[in-house]
């Protein structure tokens, strides 16, 4: 793993090529993370993958975390791995929920590490993502798909879309993957209630025609 100073060096180098791309860094539990601008996610991922000396060419995992009630609410996590040096680095792209009313101030008291870091870096949390014209649903957060850089992300981005309603622009086949195609809702969001779905059994089949 890059240590905390190493992480700052990486941040500095990315800043040189892509100013404003890295919003903050975090080094928590010995795990380095770059918190990046979602608009420039492909630039950062591509930089980490292709820059000589970085070579984070393997994407271990792509997943989403919902930091509700922190703002911005969602983060897409990219766990990158350099297999030669055996180093992992996490890239987090923070995404606000466009459906929520834009809040005037950042949530300074949030338990979320990332949000606290965002405040510390002076950038302030992003409160909205500009809707793109081709997007059918402007209430969903959007980010560019990294399938072109890391083909392994295809299923994992579909899973993120399925459970969190994050739209990955440019994904070849962004459909639900684990939930049924006609399912409504984003079940792994924190504000989605845990509860039963009605199931037909013999004792209650008269309720279902």
């Amino acid at each position, binding site marked *: 793993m890059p240590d905390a100073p190493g992480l700052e060096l990486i941040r500095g180098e990315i800043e040189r090529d892509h100013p404003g791309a890295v919003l903050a860094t975090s080094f*928590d*539990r*010995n*795990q380095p993370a770059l918190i990046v601008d979602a608009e420039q996610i492909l630039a950062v991922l591509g930089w980490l993958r292709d820059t000589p000396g970085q070579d984070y*060419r*393997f*994407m*271990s*995992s792509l*997943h989403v*975390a*919902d*930091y509700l009630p922190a703002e911005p609410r969602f983060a897409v*996590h990219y*766990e990158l791995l350099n*297999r030669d040096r*055996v180093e*992992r680095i*996490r890239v987090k792209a923070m995404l606000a929920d466009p459906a929520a009313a834009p809040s005037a101030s950042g949530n300074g008291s949030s*338990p*979320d*590490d990332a949000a606290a870091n965002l405040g510390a870096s002076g950038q302030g949390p992003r409160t909205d993502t500009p809707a793109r014209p081709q997007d059918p649903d402007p209430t969903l957060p959007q980010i560019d798909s990294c399938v072109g850089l*890391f*083909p*392994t*992300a*295809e*299923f*994992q981005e579909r*899973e993120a879309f399925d*459970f969190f309603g994050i739209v990955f622009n440019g994904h070849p086949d962004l459909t*639900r*993957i*684990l*939930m*049924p195609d006609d399912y409504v809702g984003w*079940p*792994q969001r*924190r504000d*989605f209630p*845990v509860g039963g779905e009605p199931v037909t059994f013999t004792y209650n089949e008269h309720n279902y025609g």
Partner: protein
Amino acid sequence: MAELSEDLTKELMTVNIGPHHPATHGVLRLIVDLEGEVVRDLKPVIGYVHTGIEKSCEDKSYWKVIPFVERMDYVSYFFQMEAYCGAVERLVGLEIPPRAKYLRTIFLELNRIHSHLVWLGTTALDLGAISMLWYCFRERDRILDLFEMATGQRMHTRYFQVGGVIEDIPLGFEAKLREFVKDMPVRVGQYEALLDRNEVFLSRTKGVGIVSRERLLELGVTGPLLRAAGEPWDLRKTFDYLAYPEMDFQIPVGTVGDNYDRYRVRVAEMVESTRIVEQALDLMPEGPFIADDRKYVLPPRSELSTSMESLIHHFKLVTEGFRVDPGEVYYAIESPRGELGCFVLADGSSKPSRVHFRDPSFVNLQAFKDMAMDSYIADMICSLGMLDPILGGVDR
């Protein structure tokens, strides 16, 4: 024989295979475009055993999540426990005692053998070698007996706890395990004798389902599939976790990356795993089997009747569970199918805010199209077996 016109032979037919089909190793549905008997396009459709385990975990205190995550990949349950417990231990900064590391290593490797035995039996069955199933399940049963002896359960044992393991191994376990470790390499040799000179098995597997190592890495494939293509990548060697740094073992790799290599790699891994178990037994230190931090670990049962403090700790841990400071950890281990990663996000309460598993079957399944493309449909079934997806893990 009647002459078929060109356009008739070129006609594509879309066939649906599964989700309920004995050759799909679970409830996997495949939509296959066939030209005659040759696969021209393929799309896996998954989600038929999606049970929302990750969501359910958010509603349980940390220690109650363990039995949930075990049930994802129901063949390699110890690995899910280790990934989850390891992630939580890294979140709270809990060091597990050396004996627990060795005990965990032993059970993980036994589970690896168990998982590979289930794979070998069912996949050989797909290829017509029915007797392999009985032989493999005979040895698998001995492993389950060992699990039952140490943990009380044959599957889904809930043996690993945050901080160590729940109980030390019982008297007589070591002797029984040593007997198994002595027998297992002989049994593996017998499997090889059955399959390696089996003309049907060889011609069905050799040169079939080749995917280049570069493509596998692009697709994020790990585990025996990647090693069969010649890439010696094993998290047990590269990352420092449990007792693996002290163990002497080899990483079997293949050369061509066809289905035969995948078979060879897994069979060789079983022998390596027995070596690890044997060494772990030899080197296992005495001492506590679970950490002594009462804020996270249940006090010993015997103290409850004498110590008020222990009783309070016990009550707090069982009712509320322990709280974890905000933070997030991604912890990955080498499961029988590849990199099994567990991401745990803590929000300061006694329940995880998110538990996500990077399941190797789920990611590896993306390589299936490359493996089966332009091969016969019968070879597609063989490739699917060699891919070894566990649909419980794919769908979670």
